[in-house]
């Protein structure tokens, strides 16, 4: 087991009452796994990722990498943050943003430049080298963050909704890119997404989280063929089945804790808020 999450619990202590983001999570990733993580918004996916990246100390439990407890960011791990815009350095050009971690890794200049150019070309930003991140569109920024992670050639890659801001076509291309990377380089990938199709298309397994207080609801093995393809895989009947299953699970997860949203989202904005919170507490 490469990455091992054991009895993880995270409570944010704030000025106000503490927020229990994660109650109890236990799961593992073998070397070379590609696992997708889905769960309702606010259920603690980002929190989990940060704990696994060694950026956040768990309240209870632990994360182990190669059987060593993670206490700080381990080497060889790359993270693509959900807040892609804020994770790029506004004072550096796109190229420098991608190059910085490599420079830090001690890679020679020539090779670095090749890696950067390649990574940027691969995400479709071959002509944006000299732009600053804030001169790019949201989707382009996100792709820079992806390029940075790809160029870094990590052993473990954690991605937090990395394709949220790109268009359908680019998304499909990037999905294939990720699977390609994974197959060729044997990277271990944990991939957070909201897109159920994407989760099923990409992953060997899909971990479905419950809504807050968060536990693992189900770990679903994806028994689709190894070689996947946007057209054939997605029209596969097994794919449709899996997808429906995941959807139902998430729906159920949300239903359990958030009956109200569903009712109100449909019914429009009729009643006063008082009655809603009452409804909830019932």
């Amino acid at each position, binding site marked *: 087991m490469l990455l091992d999450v054991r009895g993880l619990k995270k409570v944010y202590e704030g000025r106000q009452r503490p927020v229990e983001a994660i109650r109890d999570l236990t799961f593992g990733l073998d070397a070379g796994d590609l696992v997708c993580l889905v769960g309702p918004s606010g259920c603690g996916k980002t929190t989990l990722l940060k704990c696994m*990246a060694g950026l956040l100390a768990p309240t209870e439990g632990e994360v182990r990498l190669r059987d060593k407890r993670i206490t700080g960011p381990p080497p060889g791990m790359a*993270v693509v943050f959900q807040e892609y815009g804020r994770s790029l350095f506004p004072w550096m050009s796109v190229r420098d943003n991608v190059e910085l*971690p490599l420079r830090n890794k001690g890679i020679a200049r020539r090779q670095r430049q090749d890696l950067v150019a390649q990574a940027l070309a691969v995400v479709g930003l071959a002509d944006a080298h000299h732009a600053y991140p*804030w001169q790019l569109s949201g989707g382009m920024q996100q792709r820079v963050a992806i390029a940075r992670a790809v160029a870094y050639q990590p052993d473990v890659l954690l991605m937090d909704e990395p394709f949220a801001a790109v268009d359908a076509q680019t998304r499909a291309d990037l999905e294939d890119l990720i699977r390609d990377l994974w197959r060729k380089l044997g990277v271990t990938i944990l991939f957070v997404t909201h897109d159920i199709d994407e989760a099923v298309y990409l992953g060997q397994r899909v971990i479905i989280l419950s809504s807050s207080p968060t536990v693992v609801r189900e770990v679903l093995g994806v028994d689709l063929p190894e070689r996947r393809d946007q057209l054939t895989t997605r029209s596969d009947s097994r794919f449709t089945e899996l997808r429906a299953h995941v959807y139902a699970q998430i729906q159920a997860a949300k239903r359990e804790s958030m009956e109200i949203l569903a009712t109100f989202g449909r019914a429009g904005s009729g009643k006063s808020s008082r009655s809603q919170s009452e409804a909830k507490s019932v």
Partner: protein
Amino acid sequence: MTNLLTRIGLALALPVVLFAAWWFGTEGSDNFYVPPLREILRTFPEVWTGERIRADVLPSLIRLAAGYTVAVFAGVCLGVLVGSRRRVRAVLEPVLEFFRAIPPPVLVPVIMLFAGIGDTMKVVVIAAGCVWPILLNTVEGVRAVDGVLADTCRSYGITGPARLRHLVLRSASPQIAAGMRQALSIGIILMVISEMFAASNGLGFTIVQFQRSFAIPDMWSGILLLGLLGLALSVLFRLAESRALAWYHGQRRAQRGLR
């Protein structure tokens, strides 16, 4: 081109109005300490001859440059340390605040005990005064580094000097620039104050001598020169800043769409 011209025009408009007001406001002045502006302008070229500039203004500027450099260096180093380590801040802040509140005129004699009465003392005085805005702003800038960026650096193993150079200093640089800009004019003021003690040349010394010897138009011409000096240095500073912070100004400008 026209852009540049309008900018120069705008920069000159208010000073011209103020100088006109000064000129006409003091035209018939018989107050000994408020001579007519005409008188001041007449004395200006007489007082600030080439020889005076070489003998008084230049040494002052060199001391200013030295003191300012020391202050920037010390302020940023200490600021990064104090800003990023909460413990260190808790220990050092009261001591620093203690010294910050002591006026230079009473501090100078104490500094003289350690640094003598030569140029070293004056440089120390200038540095000791300039360092505060830089220090405070650096501390605040370092404390305010964006959490997501900090996480990004940590997860890519960018730590130590690389983190300092690529994250901390860059992200705090707008605020450090604010501090450096404050410090510039404070440096000029302290240059004057330091030359009130144990000096025998310098711009501040000359102005104080004029004041003591009741050469009031000469004194005013010196004050005028100080103002011009401040203006010139700030223009230089702006140029440097707009280069160093191009990303920052560009970002703000680009995203501020209209106009």
